[in-house]
């Protein structure tokens, strides 16, 4: 616990130093990044210890608060979420050293570093809190710091719009959390987690719905996700990596903790979570397929992965309620491991996208192509991330998706209701997996393969050394988890036991232990087979020099880069199929007259929910609110009167 405190202090102190050294880009980057790296390495010590030897450390700061206390606890569940936070903080900070150089002299880098470190510190505080007050303080600090980072390039109008949407979403989420904690604390004079009275019956369900809304807004459940595809692409890439990789997982963490205070669970909670998972997972990946911008595509894919995590959580809850424990254990395990896995590969992919954006000046898929020749290292790392996020063996994404799918298979013999949930899970996981692999074949292919589609790719250069190192670390972690999955059984089982009861921890070790050994063996076999084939091919080609020629294009020998298939064409059969959900808008100015001049065609996959749900709702609220605008007249003395009246009314009610 001491080291955890040290790491938060180092983060905050280096944030302060970064602000002080704002004048010099070199100094502020050095201070900010080294602070983040040192803090992460320090913070990982107690975390790893807790995961290896499950323990529960508490800490209470001696300072009093009106309804709470600064009490913190480090248990295996918290430790499990802290691992990706620290890893990604360190990697993103190193990446940021190179990435932020392009803004040198144009932007206050000190502020960017300070906010980055505050963001990391606030996530650590959120995870460690054992009291609603520090939890909410951390939560709001997280929202504020990330808001400041999202509007880093505030001279762009799109970024400002993203910032406002993000701010509103964050505020709304916090309101629901206040309501939820108030319900937890009914009849108790403290908001410490240990003194929560468990609300029962209808109140429990209300508290659960508040948790879904409040934490779902942060996690990006469909249809609460609309801030996500706006805010994540707007932020600098290393911040996008942290936001998409770990910050949205704070919503999942909060939900898991909230479920802890809400026993006994209702069956419909499980069904609600499954529904959210299915809808978010499928719509997330379908929207991702239709995007033209690499960072927006990655943001939508985060929604998909949050869907997978929630699906795991949902079958977990259903399994517990229906007393089908292997289903529950594997569902929770899948959700937990996917949190870590998604942090690793989404962080990696956002960093890859940032390297492309940095090098080519655009992340527009239709303008890129052929970058693997100029950025070979970035291409390899991005490929690892793409294969991992598509859930392909032998990488880490496969292991967590395996847990969820396998969990569903174990429940097939269950009574019909639960079995239906299991069948739904299997079908949806299969669909999401193939759609994700189509989506990332498109993303990787459009950016790195073929020929460059525009001149922008001509001057492209490889990512800087720190950027490369950060991506390399994350890619190595993806590969490591894929091959060494049996090592995960103990920490996962500890985290499950801590979050959902010791019985499920044991159940998980029993259900997953042997399959993971086989999966690891399968991964090693695959690696060995690939090596053998490669050697065989080398042997066959010894002493011969392959000839080079043009690509076969039906006998046409001068194909140009513009004749390539575009990224949108590649997914057109699928986007066309899902058009009712996507509502892609097509803009076409056709050829007219005998001597047609220019023609133009472009499509926009706008946010369906924003256009068809939120915009009408906001208009309605605005219209209603205007009727009462006479209340808001700008006279300060009357505002003070309002406050006094409200206070008196509250006091009278209390009496």
């Amino acid at each position, binding site marked *: 616990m001491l080291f955890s405190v040290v790491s938060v202090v180092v983060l905050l102190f280096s944030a302060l130093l970064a602000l002080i050294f704002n004048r010099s880009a070199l100094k502020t980057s050095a201070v900010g990044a080294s602070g983040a790296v040192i803090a992460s390495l320090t913070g990982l010590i107690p975390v790893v210890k807790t995961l290896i030897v499950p323990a529960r450390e508490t800490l209470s700061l001696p300072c009093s608060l009106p309804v709470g206390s600064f009490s913190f606890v480090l248990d295996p569940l918290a430790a499990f979420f802290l691992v990706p936070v620290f890893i990604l903080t360190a990697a993103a900070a190193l990446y940021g050293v190179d990435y932020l150089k392009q803004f040198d002299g144009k932007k206050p880098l000190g502020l960017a570093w300070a906010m980055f470190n505050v963001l990391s510190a606030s996530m650590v505080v959120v995870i460690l809190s054992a009291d609603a007050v520090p939890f909410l303080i951390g939560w709001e600090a997280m929202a504020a710091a990330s808001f400041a980072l999202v509007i880093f390039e505030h001279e762009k109008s799109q970024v400002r719009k993203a910032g406002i949407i993000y701010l509103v979403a964050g505020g709304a989420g916090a309101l629901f959390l206040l309501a939820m904690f108030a319900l937890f604390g009914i009849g108790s004079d403290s908001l410490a987690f240990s003194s929560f009275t468990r609300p029962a019956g209808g109140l429990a369900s209300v508290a659960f719905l508040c948790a879904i809304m409040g934490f779902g807004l942060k996690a990006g459940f469909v249809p609460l996700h609309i801030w996500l595809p706006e805010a994540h692409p707007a932020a600098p890439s290393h911040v996008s990596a942290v936001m998409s990789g770990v910050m949205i997982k704070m919503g999942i963490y909060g939900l898991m903790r909230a479920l802890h205070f809400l026993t006994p669970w209702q069956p419909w909670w499980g069904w609600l979570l499954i529904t959210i998972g299915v809808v978010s997972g499928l719509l997330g990946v379908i929207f991702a397929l239709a995007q033209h911008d690499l960072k927006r595509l990655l943001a939508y894919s985060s929604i998909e992965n949050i869907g997978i995590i929630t699906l795991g959580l949902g079958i977990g809850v259903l399994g517990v309620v229906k007393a089908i424990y292997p289903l529950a254990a594997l569902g929770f395990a899948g959700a937990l491991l996917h949190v870590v896995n998604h942090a690793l590969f989404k962080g990696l992919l956002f960093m890859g996208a940032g390297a492309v954006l940095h090098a080519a000046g655009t992340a527009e898929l239709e303008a890129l192509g*052929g970058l693997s*020749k100029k950025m070979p290292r970035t*291409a390899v790392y991005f*490929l690892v991330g793409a294969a991992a996020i*598509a*859930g*392909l*063996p032998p990488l880490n994404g*496969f292991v967590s998706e*395996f847990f969820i*799918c*396998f969990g569903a*298979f174990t429940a097939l*013999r269950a009574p019909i209701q639960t*079995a239906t949930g299991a*069948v739904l899970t*299997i*079908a*949806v*996981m*299969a*669909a999401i*997996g*193939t*759609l994700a*692999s*189509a989506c990332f*074949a498109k993303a*990787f*292919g459009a950016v790195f*393969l*073929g020929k460059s589609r525009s001149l922008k790719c001509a001057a492209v250069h490889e990512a800087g050394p720190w950027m490369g190192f950060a991506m390399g670390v994350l890619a190595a972690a993806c590969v490591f988890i894929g091959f060494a999955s049996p090592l995960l059984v103990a920490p996962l089982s500890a985290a499950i036991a801590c979050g959902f009861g010791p019985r499920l921890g044991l159940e998980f070790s029993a259900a997953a232990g042997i*399959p993971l050994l*086989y*999966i690891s063996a*399968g991964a090693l*076999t*695959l690696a060995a*087979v*690939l090596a053998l*084939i490669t050697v065989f*091919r080398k042997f*066959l*080609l010894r002493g011969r*020099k*392959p*000839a*080079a*020629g*043009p*690509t*076969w*294009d*039906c006998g046409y020998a001068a*194909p140009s880069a513009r004749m*390539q298939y575009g990224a949108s064409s*590649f997914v057109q*059969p*699928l986007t066309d*199929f899902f058009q009712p959900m996507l509502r892609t808008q097509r803009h076409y100015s056709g050829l007219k007259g005998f001597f047609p001049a220019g023609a133009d065609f472009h499509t926009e996959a706008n946010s369906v929910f924003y256009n068809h749900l939120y915009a009408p709702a906001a208009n309605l609220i605005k219209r209603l609110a205007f009727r009462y605008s006479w209340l808001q007249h700008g006279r300060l003395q009357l505002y003070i009167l309002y406050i006094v009246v409200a206070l008196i009314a509250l006091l009278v009610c209390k009496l």
Partner: protein
Amino acid sequence: MKVVAQYLMVLTLSPLLLGVINRVKAFFGGRKGIPLFQLYRDLFKLLHKTPVYSRSTTWLFRAGPIVGLGAVLCALAIVPFSGRHSFLAFDGDLILMVYLLGLARFATVLAALDTGSSFEDMGASREVQFAVFAEPAFFLALAALARGTGQLSLSAMFAGLTPAVWQSAASVLALVTAALFIVFLAENSRVPVDDPNTHLELTMIHEVMALDHSGPDLAFILYGAALKLWALGALISCAVLPRHSASWFVDSGRFILMMFVLAAAVGVLESIIARLRFLKVPYLLFTAFSFSVLALMFQAAR
């Protein structure tokens, strides 16, 4: 020992399946047809050729066939042989098998995209599209089998399939087999989804992705395709051969015979029906999906 023998038999016999299909088609077309063992000769010849690479390709283009073949080889280690256990049989192995085939597909698609040719990109685009519809059908068909037999590994599932199970749940097993057959045709790019004999780049799927590959790379692709045909066909053969005898030789012989009957059936099918339009292929795959769902419903109602 027997497991190794089974695996080696699969490795040697797979290319013969394509020979059988071609001979049956030639018979229906009134031709003499290419020799049964032609694919072996092709593979041997290709392995000794020097490849030609397009200037727009990178290492990924060369890695594609290697990963494609390696992944299918590993998937084959999971596939049961005549209802007997395979190398890698464990609870949940079917998920690994399907995802390994997914890895092979991903590698093939990326290698195709690396050439920068519109034709290859078209094929890749179709390949990923059809996979989206085929894979849920495949998974649910296996889920119906898992619910029916109570087993979670492919080997155990098919070993648990006895004539008694067929008698009591014939409708379920028939639907599962039908769904598996459609997925088998689609995943192996056979008529009515794709025509391996077509010679127009615009209308091909699997063949067009391999247009630029040559030499050993092409040999790996052709051999991988033959192995994949065996991998998915074996599930169908196991499903329709529920009777197991005590003798490994009898079982194996019967199973291999069944594989060639299946190949002949594919040949007959390809001779009597035409390929579907691309826009209609998803409907065929939905049919497979519906069969799987129906099988699950029948199984649940039993």
